[in-house]
Structures are given as structure tokens and as C-alpha cells.
């Protein structure tokens, strides 16, 4: 039932975010299709790349918001003593919240691209399934670190507005700092496919940056572990 609680807590944010990203992607691709002629293949692929850029912005904002809440926030609103009196460990409380958030983040990565895939097929401009899968893998695999960062921030900061503001600030700052000094390690460029795109065909390379994705997932795992330790050591 902890999963049920986690679902009830996040469903509004999740459903609104999912609808926003999906509608945006569908409208963006559908609208742009009408402007592409006659050499549409390259332009269309370019359009899909831009779609990933915009979808990534929305997705990152959504997963940061999904990462908010949790037991520290519950302390601020006064329900932590109910949750902490349940016969479950704090690690499990955090774990279930992370699990639900990750499922929602993955769904938010898949559904908009599935919508784009179907709209393209209906418009008789089919795109390769492998391209769709690559975009989803880059978005979710590379981007989970944003979600993990949001979970960590919400384990440290209780404020309803402070925590998301801080988390989004970190996202922006990290993107700017990495782009200036450590461009090769810029997560934003990994997530959007900038490292993998062929600038002529605007197709993603068949060889995804697995090392980057693995590093990102590892950093996310470390951040989630840190969140569990923070919550376990925190007093309520």
C-alpha cells in the first residue's frame, strides 16, 4: 500500500506532466510536418531532434517536480509522524517513492515518443523504431540523474517552493557550467542526443553513448543511496 500512497501523492503531477509533454510533442511534430517539403527526410529528422530538445526540457522539469515531496516534506506539513509510525523502514519509504517516480519518469519518456511515432506513421512519414527507442533511452537513461538529484534535494530541503526552486536552479547551473568548462561531460547534451546526432542526416548514431548513460545511471544510483542515508539519519 506504500505504492498506492506514492501513486496518490504523485498522480496529479504525473498525469498533468504526461499530458503536457505528449500533447506538446504531438502538436509540434504534426504542425511541423505541414511545413516540410520536398526533401522531407532530413528535415523531418531534424525536426525530431528538436522535438527531443523541447521534450527533454519539459521532461526534466516534470521529473524534478515528481522528485519533490517525501518524508521531509511530510514533516513540514505534519504527516511524518503517521508515516514514520508505520512498521516500515525509512529505506523502504524512500525506495517506494523512488520506484514510483522512476516508473512515472519512464512512462513520461515513452508515451510522448510513442505518440510522435504514431502521428508520423499516420501522416505517411514513418520514422524508424530504432530512432524512437534511442531517443527514449537517451532521455530516460541519461536523465534519471535529474530525478535522483530532485529526490536528494527533497531529502535535504523541506520547503514547498524552496526545494523545487533549488533543484531547477541546480539543473540550469549544471548545464551552464558543464557547457562552459566540461562540455564533453554535459548531461544535457547527452540527454538531447547532441553527442549522438549525425549533423548531415540528423539521425542518431546506432552506437549510443552507453558509457555516458551508464555513468549517469551510476551517479543517479549514488544520489538515491545518499538520499536514503540522509533520511535514515534525519530526526523527525
Amino acid at each position, binding site marked *: 500500500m506504500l505504492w498506492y500512497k506514492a501513486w496518490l501523492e504523485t498522480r496529479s503531477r504525473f498525469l498533468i506532466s504526461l499530458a503536457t509533454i505528449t500533447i506538446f510533442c504531438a502538436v509540434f511534430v504534426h504542425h511541423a510536418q505541414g511545413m516540410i517539403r520536398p526533401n522531407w527526410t532530413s528535415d523531418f529528422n531534424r525536426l525530431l531532434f528538436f522535438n527531443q530538445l523541447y521534450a527533454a526540457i519539459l521532461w526534466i522539469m516534470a521529473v524534478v517536480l515528481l522528485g519533490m515531496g517525501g518524508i521531509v516534506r511530510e514533516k513540514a506539513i505534519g504527516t511524518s509522524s503517521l508515516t514514520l509510525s*508505520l512498521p516500515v523502514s525509512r529505506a523502504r519509504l524512500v525506495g517506494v517513492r523512488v520506484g514510483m517516480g522512476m516508473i512515472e519518469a519512464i512512462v513520461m519518456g515513452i508515451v510522448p515518443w510513442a505518440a510522435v511515432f504514431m502521428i508520423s506513421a499516420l501522416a505517411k512519414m514513418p520514422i524508424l523504431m530504432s530512432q524512437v527507442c534511442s531517443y527514449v533511452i537517451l532521455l530516460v537513461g541519461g536523465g534519471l540523474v535529474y530525478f535522483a538529484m530532485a529526490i536528494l534535494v527533497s531529502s535535504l530541503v523541506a520547503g514547498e517552493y524552496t526545494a523545487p526552486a533549488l533543484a531547477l536552479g541546480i539543473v540550469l547551473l549544471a548545464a551552464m557550467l558543464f557547457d562552459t568548462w566540461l562540455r564533453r561531460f554535459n548531461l544535457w547534451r547527452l540527454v538531447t542526443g547532441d553527442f549522438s546526432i549525425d549533423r548531415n542526416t540528423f539521425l542518431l548514431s546506432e552506437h549510443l553513448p552507453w558509457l555516458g548513460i551508464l555513468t549517469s545511471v551510476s551517479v543517479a544510483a549514488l544520489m538515491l543511496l545518499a538520499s536514503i542515508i540522509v533520511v535514515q539519519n534525519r530526526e523527525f
Partner: protein
Amino acid sequence: MTNEAVIFTQALTKRYGAVHAVRELNLAVRRNRVTAFLGKNGAGKSTTIKMLLGMVRPTAGEGTMLGKQITDTHQNVDMRRRVAYVAEDKPLYGYMTIEQTIRFASSFYPDWRTDIERKLLSDYELPLRRKVRELSKGMRTKLALLLAFARQPELLILDEPSEGLDPVGIEHLLQTLVAQSADGVSVFFSSHQIAEVERVADDVCILEKGSLMMDTPLDDLRQFYRRIDLVFPFPPLEREFQISGVESIRTSGLQMSLFTSANADAVVERAHDLHAVSVEVAPVSLREIFLETVKEA
């Protein structure tokens, strides 16, 4: 005592910087008893309860609840399966309905009593489909109590359980507490409503400034505590009454008022020896005992 105690603490201490919230608390709450935990606001009651439940880490000392170490994470989780806790502010998830809240809570306790749940739903007239955030304070309290009573705990910890309840609700609560105790549930509750405490408690613990001032059966308090009012033909000397069991002395002109925890007979005898013209001995209420105790501290 240790074997019988459902809650046992040894020198349990919680310090926030230089402030002692709880100071070397030695507490032994007996099984199958209703124990009242009294104290002024900020005396350390809630901090003590939170330490017992593992929400706050003690600075020093140790404790067990139902034989489980309170500072051991795994043992604490195991212990919480057998303990029901209703916090002072009756925390509930506002986004759930009453039905969802009950379904959620019951999933954690295999011994959940559906019969008690149904009875209390009916007694408390709780609308199942209503969101918790739409409930009045009294209804929230009733729902929190339902969740605690229906899980059939071995130990019930209640922090200000009657807060927000109307007189009918309070009466029902007190009867339920007595019934739970008769069913073998140990009850440990804090309250500022001393008249209620006096009706249901078997034992009384009084905490003041983080220190335990009293841990006594209520019957003993009734039997031994006395207020003795004396009138003398001349101004009395307080030092004449520095007798064991005399907790406080107030003198005003020819009158003297003593508060005793024992030896009332010896005080009366001394008063007669000193030619008191009036001697009145009266039993004291728990309210008076509480006020004297926290005033003394």
C-alpha cells in the same frame, strides 16, 4: 519491574544544543495498565514519545519498548507492528478519503479488527467517501483513534487523544480506553485534561523540564497525598514541619497550608503539639498534585 514494563528507559536523554528536552529519564510503564504521562507544554513528553518510536535519536541513555531496543532500526520496525500511536496533531493524509485511509492503514497490520473498524465507523459517524482534508478537527481525531484501536495493538500510545473531541466523543474515548485496557492492551497517553486522566489512569508519570518528577499508581496518590490546613494562635514556624513527606509549606499570618505525599498523621500530631486551633486534612485531586509537582520543579 523490567520484565513487566512495556516501556523501559534508562537515563534517556535528548539535548538540542544546550537545551535538555529530556534529561536522564528512567521510566517503567507497566503492562496492561493505563498510564498517564503528564507535563506542561514543552516538558518533553512528545520528544520522549518520538524517541521511543525511533523518530528522534536519544543523545544518551537507552530504552526498550515491548522488549525491543528503541535505537535499533530493525527492532524498532518490528516493535511498531505491535504499537499504535496517535500523535498530538492527529496527522492524516489529506488527499485520501476516509475509506482509502482505513484501507491503507489496515494493510500494514495482519491483526486488523474489521469488527472494531465497523463499530467505530458507525459510532463516530465517519463518512467513508469524504476526503480527510475536508474533515473537522473532531472527525480527524476520531479517524486517528479508529486507526489506532482497530489494529489491535499490544501498546497504545496517545498524545493528547481527546483534543478536538466534544464531550460525547471524550466520553466514548474514555470508555474505549478502559475497554482496550480490559482486553489486555497497555495504554500510555499524555493529556492536559487532568479530570479525564483521573477517571481512567492506573499510573501517573509527571514530567517537568525533561525530568521525571513522579511515577506512581493513582491509587497511591489518592491514598497518601493530603492538603493540611492549620491555624495557630501565634505565627507558626515552617521549620517545625520539615518532616519527611511534606512536599510544600505555605504560611500566611496565623495560617499554614501543607501539601504532603506521606506522613499526614505525623504532621497532624505535630500541629496538635504546637497548639493548632484548627486542623483540616483533605484529600487532594490529581490536578492539585500536578500543579504542586510542576510548581516545585
